[in-house]
């Protein structure tokens, strides 16, 4: 690549004025990384389940720990947020919702909807009434 050193650089992030939509974008990456780490735990649970009643029974003990339920709560929030904001990205990919007003509105919707979905899931879901 002979001209690689002469190519113009992309402007660094710090030249932009801070906007809350940037926080949403960072949160998308952050929740994605958390979900990746969580997938290790997910496969661990599947392995425990596959390893017979002794190991599978240990899962019950694990879910009995508050710290494990809190981690699962965080994982589901990350899933709901990354899911909702991911759909927002897919809508952008088909060329819609780019106007600043629309992007801010969909950002607020995604942020609040993922909080509401997490609350609803844990209120009615598998750990109903025993989060903490």
């Amino acid at each position: 690549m002979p001209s690689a050193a002469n190519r113009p650089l992309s402007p660094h992030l710090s030249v932009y004025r801070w906007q809350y939509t940037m926080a949403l974008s960072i949160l998308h990456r952050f929740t994605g990384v958390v979900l990746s780490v969580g997938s290790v735990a997910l496969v661990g649970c599947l392995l425990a389940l596959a390893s017979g009643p002794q190991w599978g029974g240990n899962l019950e003990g694990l879910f009995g720990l508050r710290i494990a339920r809190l981690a699962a709560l965080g994982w589901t929030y990350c899933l709901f947020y990354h899911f909702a904001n991911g759909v927002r990205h897919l809508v952008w990919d088909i060329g819609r919702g780019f106007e600043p007003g629309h992007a801010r509105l969909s950002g607020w919707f995604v942020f609040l909807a993922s909080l509401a979905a997490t609350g609803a899931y844990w209120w009615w879901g598998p750990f109903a009434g025993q989060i903490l």
Partner: protein
Amino acid sequence: MVGALRGADTVSLRTPLGHAEGLGSAGHGVGHWWAQRISAVALVPLAPWFLWRLASLPTLMYEDLLHCFQGLGDATLLTAFLLALLYHSELGIRVVLEDYVGGGLRVAGLIVSRLAHLGLALAGLLAIARIVTQF
């Protein structure tokens, strides 16, 4: 500018070879972008299905969890969810490493991430196979 293409009103910074190959600066064109979108679209129904399936269990005891995914349809969807999740995860971690980590650490990270995701997929698939055949 070495090999700059000059049109009527634009000056391209890309070399003629680069322009013809259409692979961009990262060297693999739109392949990663498409793979990320396709795995994302696959996860749109699969992730809610997984959460719904867990939420519909009477308890989270061993027997309920085991029986939950033993049906052929449930095992198929769980496998699809696991593979789409891990594939999407590998693509995403790759972007994060490429954006925030430099030098040898990036190369090491990319290798570790690829191998870890492959290992998780392998372990997950074998686990599902054993879950399906357990009584």
